[in-house]
Every structure is written in structure tokens, then in C-alpha cells.
């Protein structure tokens, strides 16, 4: 049989945990709501602005992905590397 004290100490964290989960659930929904509004409404609206459309097209035309983490992710590196490798191949013959 559990004592009063032990019941209290065991149940209190459970209540706290349930409370945390409830408020946590609300915070999660709110956070996801903010994310959804930014990505589904705000950013598409910015992407439609003429100045941004022009900037995005300018990047696309040059094969630049500003979010590339490594040079192999950059399409624009292909012609540069091909040219540099050609230069290296033909250098000894010159």
C-alpha cells in the first residue's frame, strides 16, 4: 500500500507532465501555424514581387543556388571546371 506522501510525490510530476504536454501542444500548433503562414502566404507573396522575380530569374540564368553547401551542388561550376580541366590537359602539349 502506498503512503500519502509517496502518492503525492509520484502524482505531482505526472500532473506537471500532463500540464506541460497540454501547453506544449498549444505551443506546437501555434509554432506550426506561424511556419505555415510564413511559408504558404508570406514567402510566396515576396516571390511574386517583380523585383524578386527578376532577382530569382537572374540567379537561375547563371545556374547559381545561393543555398549550396558544397561546390558540387552548384550547377555553374560545371562549365568552369570543364574549362579548367581542359586547360590542365592541354598545358603540357603547348
Amino acid at each position, binding site marked *: 500500500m502506498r503512503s500519502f506522501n509517496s502518492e503525492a510525490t509520484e502524482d505531482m510530476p505526472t500532473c506537471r507532465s500532463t500540464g*506541460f*504536454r497540454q501547453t*506544449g*501542444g498549444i*505551443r*506546437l500548433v501555434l*509554432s*506550426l501555424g506561424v*511556419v505555415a503562414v510564413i*511559408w*504558404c502566404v508570406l*514567402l*510566396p507573396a*515576396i*516571390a*511574386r514581387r517583380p523585383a*524578386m522575380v527578376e*532577382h*530569382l530569374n*537572374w*540567379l537561375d540564368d*547563371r545556374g*547559381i*543556388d*545561393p*543555398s*549550396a*553547401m*558544397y*561546390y*558540387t*551542388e*552548384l550547377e*555553374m*561550376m560545371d562549365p*568552369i*571546371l570543364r*574549362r*579548367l*580541366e581542359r*586547360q*590542365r590537359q592541354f598545358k603540357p602539349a603547348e
Partner: protein
Amino acid sequence: MTSDSPQDAAARPGTLIQMRTSEDWWAIWCGTLLIVVAFLAVWCNRPDDFRGKIAEGQAVEVSSPLKPWLAKPNKWDSSPLDSFYRPATAGESGVNTVQGVLGVFCVIAVLFTVATQIRGLSGVKFLKAFPVVFLLATLAYVMAAQSVVKAYNLEYALWALMIGLIISNTVRTPEFLKPAVVTEFYIKTGLVLLGAEVLMTRLLALGAPGVMVAWVVTPVVLISTYIFGQKVLRMESRSLNMVISADMSVCGVSAAIATASACKAKKEELSLAIGMSLSFTVIMMIVLPAIIKAVGMDEILGGAWLGGTIDSTGAVAAAGAVLSDRAMEVAATVKMIQNILIGVTAFCVATYWTTAVERDPSADRPSLLEIWNRFPKFVLGFVLASIIFSFVHGTLAGGPELVDATIKGSTKTLRGWFFCLAFVSIGLDTDFRELLPQMRGGKPLILYVCGQSLNLCLTLLMAWLAFHVVFRDLVEQAAP
């Protein structure tokens, strides 16, 4: 990514047991298997008389048959669904990445379930949790693929981290997810795959001027910043100091990941370093080209300066293009050389950590066996993949075509997914409050700003010397 004590190292099981159970070794096995399969797929798919055509100097197209089966969400403007499917229109070709994303899911799920089971953990529990973690990683990729987000260098690592943090700091990460929250396993496997992209043969792409800018300045700034952090700022964490110094001096997020794993930094330290690096990159990619234009700096010098200072690779290209196509080429090539220095940096940091930092100060010099035991083994896989692919790229007839097809057709995509899964895992495993002590006294910020200031001055000086004084004629001949 946490460091262990010399006592832990002494109690470590033998190499053969580690090969069967440790994350480091399994990262090597999984990474190697993926690289071998990727290369064989390209090799078997090479056109008839491949060698003959290469010998005749003909342009040969080689592709990977795995490419349609491995993909990430595509770029989108107004609807997130466009990142998975968009029908072809008159002006644009269609997009369908569903098959590729599912392919990646199947490959990683099967591989890691088997690996987890053989390592003596529960493969079934991993398999039950993995779909949710993968779904979160997919969401991070979709967020990063929005065209405006991409244009400002806000990489998937940031969003993956944010998604994980939102969950862990609101409803807390559910217990059932934890078997698939294997940050280090994802990062280390991703790094072994990254090794295949670290082609040493491209280190001399810009010749002597490139060597001067990238090879000299990068290690000088890295070491000076680290010493400044230790001696002047007295940073509490050596590993945080090292990760910030490396991501600022080498090439941003990818260097931070490699160095953090090599020096066994805490996950919060990696998050902090990446957050700072991405924030400063956004500022620098806008401000630096404006300064270069305002002072009327020569485009090649400006390009070299941008390439040596802006952390992120994509941002360097974008900033260089603002100046001119020529500046963009120089900037991107200098940054590529820095990218390749990741291999050397990770190896040197791992060696320094095992021989100097983790060394017991009261004991004699550590024996070779002790160093071997402490050394992060996945670094060997990373370096070996780099050496083998560099060899194939540099010596085999048609090597560049075969290596490029292997990387672009499969390993690059898988590596990205592994890093994305790792950052989701870091977020799921991090409490916001754990990040606060790292910011105490603003030391990381001061370290970054001071290190970057040194980087800006030294790179400008070295670029001016290399491109304008010492190798001026060479540059005029070689530049496009």
C-alpha cells in the same frame, strides 16, 4: 559528438569488436557500400567504347541509372506541393521528385535498420521511428526549397534544426522516436559520402594564385582564431572554439560539420556555430559586393576576396555574380579550393584532438595504440574516400566523367539527406536552455567577428599580392 576521458579510452573494447558495434566503423561500412554501389552503377552504365571516345577527345555523357531513384524536394515559388510534383508547361519542364524521395527513404531505412540490428541495438525500433524523422527532414527540405529562402542562403540545416527544436521544446520528443534520433551516425555516414566529393586534383584549379589565397590564408586564420579564442577570450569550450574557427575560415556549414565530428564537439556547439555562420553569410553576401563596387576594386581581386571570406559556397557565387561573370568564376573557384581543404582540416583537427587535447596532462606522451583508440575512425573513411576518388578522377581515362556522374547521380543527394536527418535529430535532442550557456559573455560572437575581421584583412592582402603583384601575368592569361 561529446568527448570522452582517457579512462573511457582505456576501457574501450578492441578494434575488432568496435568494427562490429561502433558508430564510427558503421558509418564507414554504410558510406563505403553506398559509394561502391553508386560507382558500379555508373561504371556499368558507361557508353560503349568509352575509353576510345575519351582518348579521341570526344565529349562523352555518362549518367547514373540511380539518379531518378534518389532525389530531394525541388525548388518552389508559391506552392510547397510543387517541390514534389509539377506538370510540364510550355516554358518549363515538369517535376516529379516523389519517386526519388521515396527511394532515398527506402535506401536509408533498409541500410540503417540492418546496421542498427548488427550493432546489437533494435533494428525494429529504428524502423518504427525512422519514417517520422524522415518526414520531418522532408519538411525541412521543402522549407529550404522555397525560392526566396534559397536566394538568401538559408540552408536546410537551419530549418531542420528549427523543426526539431520546435518539437523538443513544445511537446518534447516522444520516446518512440529516439531510436531514430542518431545524430552522429547520420553525420558520420554523410561525411564519408562527402569524402568522395573532396577531389584533391582540383586543389590546383587556379594555380599558384589560388594556392596563395586559399592554402595560406585559410590555415593561418583558422589557427590564429583558435589561439585567440583560447588565450585571449579564454573560451570555456575548446571544441566550440575550434568549430567556430573552422566554419568561419574554411567554408561554413560543411566545414563546421566535419570539424565538429573530428573534435567531438557537443551538438549545441555545432548548432550555434552554424547559426552564426549563416547569419553572417547573409549579411556578407550583400555588403561585400557593395563595398567592392563602391571602392572600385578590380573584379578579379574582388572575386578572390569574396571567395576567401564569405563562409557559404552558394553565397560566394551569388555575391561574385553581382560584380561580374569573371568575378563569379574566380570567387567560386577560390571557394571550391577551400571546400576541398575540409579533408585536410578534419584530419588535422582529429589528430590534434587525440594527441594533444584529449591527452592526460599527468601522463607521458600517449602511445600509438592509445592515439589509434581515441582517433575518430570515420575520419579515415572520409579521407580514404577522398583519396580514392581523387585518384580515379586524376588518373583513370574518363575519370572526371565517371566521378562526376557518381557524385551528381547519387552520393551528393544521399549526403544531403544524411546531414538533413542529422540536423533534425540535433533539434529533437536539444533543449533551448542548453544553448544559452554557450552564448555566455558573447564570447562566440566576439570570436567570430574578430576571426572574420582577420580573415577579411589577410585574404584581401594575399589576394592583392597573388592576383595583382606576384602572378599578374599568369592571371591575365588564365582568367576567362
